[in-house]
């Protein structure tokens, strides 16, 4: 049966962009949370002013206990057994989107789509509901790790 509520939800889903994390849990070291600013659906300034490293970013993206991007997205990385199909493939993302837009997507995608399943990898810890004890006050990835992942994603042309 299809009703109005379902139809609306179905539409929302189309615009959901996503990612999910794995069972293996390693919390990033505690650090001071750096505030970031959204302008025109983008975060143009690197988090905490850090420089990203694409090679490290690639490792973080495929590590199930860190970024775990592969849980939901396909990435052009060799030797991967299984990809998730929840989010769009990220091949060529660097030519489709700007760095600032990608940063916002990774940091807190709900600024673009409030219904998104994708976790905010640098969402304000104060906004997290019922965090597990080891994760209170923490972000999913550290600011440096986020910058590394972005440095990697922009290379995907």
């Amino acid at each position, binding site marked *: 049966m299809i009703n109005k509520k379902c139809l609306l939800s179905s539409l929302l889903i189309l615009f959901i962009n996503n990612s*999910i994390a794995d069972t293996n849990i390693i919390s990033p070291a505690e650090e001071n949370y750096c505030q970031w600013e959204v302008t025109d659906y983008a975060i143009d300034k690197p988090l905490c002013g850090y420089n990203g490293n694409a090679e490290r970013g690639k490792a973080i993206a495929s590590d199930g206990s860190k970024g775990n991007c592969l849980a939901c997205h396909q990435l052009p990385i060799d030797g991967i057994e299984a990809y998730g199909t929840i989010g769009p493939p990220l091949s060529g993302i660097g030519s489709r989107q700007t760095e600032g837009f990608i940063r916002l997507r990774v940091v807190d995608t709900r600024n673009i789509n409030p219904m998104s*399943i994708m976790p905010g990898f640098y969402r304000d810890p104060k906004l997290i509901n019922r965090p*597990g004890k080891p994760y209170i006050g923490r972000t999913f990835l550290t600011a440096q790790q986020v910058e590394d992942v972005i440095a990697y994603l922009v290379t995907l042309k």
Partner: protein
Amino acid sequence: MMSNYKLHITILLAILTTDICAEPVSGYEYIKPETQVMQDDDFANPGLLSVDRGEELFNKKYEKGKACADCHGAEGDKFNIKRLARYPMYKNRTEEIITLQKRIKNCQSTITDKPLQTDHPDLIALETFVRNRAHGEKVNVKTDGPVAELLKEGEKLFTTRYGLIDMSCQHCHGFYPGQMIRGQKISQGQANGFPAYRLATGEMANLHLRIQQCMTLLRAEPFETDSKEINLLGLYLMSRSNGLAIETPAVRY
């Protein structure tokens, strides 16, 4: 602006690519074929060890000289199967949700001074054995009367985000059944197979344990055992499975 034509195609695609509006589908349809074979095989299904253990406990004489089997039959053959499929139930007099396990525990406390702790493996074995008596019967949780309000509260818990991963149950089990998380297909999160044997842990889990395990995965603080929240969410989840055949013990990832 999107043209009307394009918008219609978009809506059509949205409907085709999601099954959030679909009828309930058992988790059985989302597991791998080899896992289905394992579940269906009475020798290969590890959950049946729990059924056997449950039967043993069911026939055990407690210190007051009575066993569950004294009232319910050695194989639980005196149970009303239709009634077993109604759990969790709502008890008007005490205004509480009675899960099947809670019912067993209450019953147990009449024949022993040392009833088992909630979710103790032996209590889960008993729950598995008793629920297995209703194998094939359709889940039939009451949804009207005072339960209707409770289900609304349960649904709210289902759609609330939890933990560092910051997702709700609905995000995966409402919006994305059939999609893959790495190598696993996302199910609708139906409850008809529980208690189930979990390949990921190598242990039996009843619905409440499974909820807690899911929340831990979300890097959230799980709802406490016996809490109001876990009872409400468990009730809501089982009501979503109304009409699905009971598969206990199912084999699930």
